[in-house]
């Protein structure tokens, strides 16, 4: 399906972004751990969305064009992922009539 294709495309782009940034964040690798954690907690719907692909593509292109703002793009991605974090499942109590 289209959603599945987007999901795979986004996974590939995210892996490429991680690989690129890892080379420029060697003085504080915890930042990459933080980014991975945000990605893991994001909702599956967002991770397979066009919006995420566009954000990821933009950050990756800019990061690859010059390394001086690596943390800016990591921060941007973390913020977007945080905004789309999967909602915690709430306990639903069904009352019998």
């Amino acid at each position, binding site marked *: 399906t289209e959603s599945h294709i987007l999901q795979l495309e986004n996974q590939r782009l995210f892996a490429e972004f991680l690989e690129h940034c890892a080379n420029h964040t060697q003085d504080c690798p*915890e*930042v990459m751990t*933080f980014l991975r954690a945000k990605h893991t907690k994001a909702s599956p719907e967002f991770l397979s969305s066009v919006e995420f692909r566009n954000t990821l593509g933009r950050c990756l292109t800019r990061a690859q064009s010059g390394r*001086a*703002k690596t*943390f*800016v793009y*990591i*921060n941007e991605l*973390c913020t977007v992922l945080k905004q789309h974090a999967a909602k915690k499942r709430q306990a639903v109590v069904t009352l019998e009539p």
Partner: protein
Amino acid sequence: VPTLIADDDDDPENRIAKKMLLAQIKANYSSG
């Protein structure tokens, strides 16, 4: 004569972003 090597810390915006990320990580670590 020391050689100047441009790195990520030379960019003010990047320096701020780095500080923000590290502050968030520290806050997360402290809270949980």
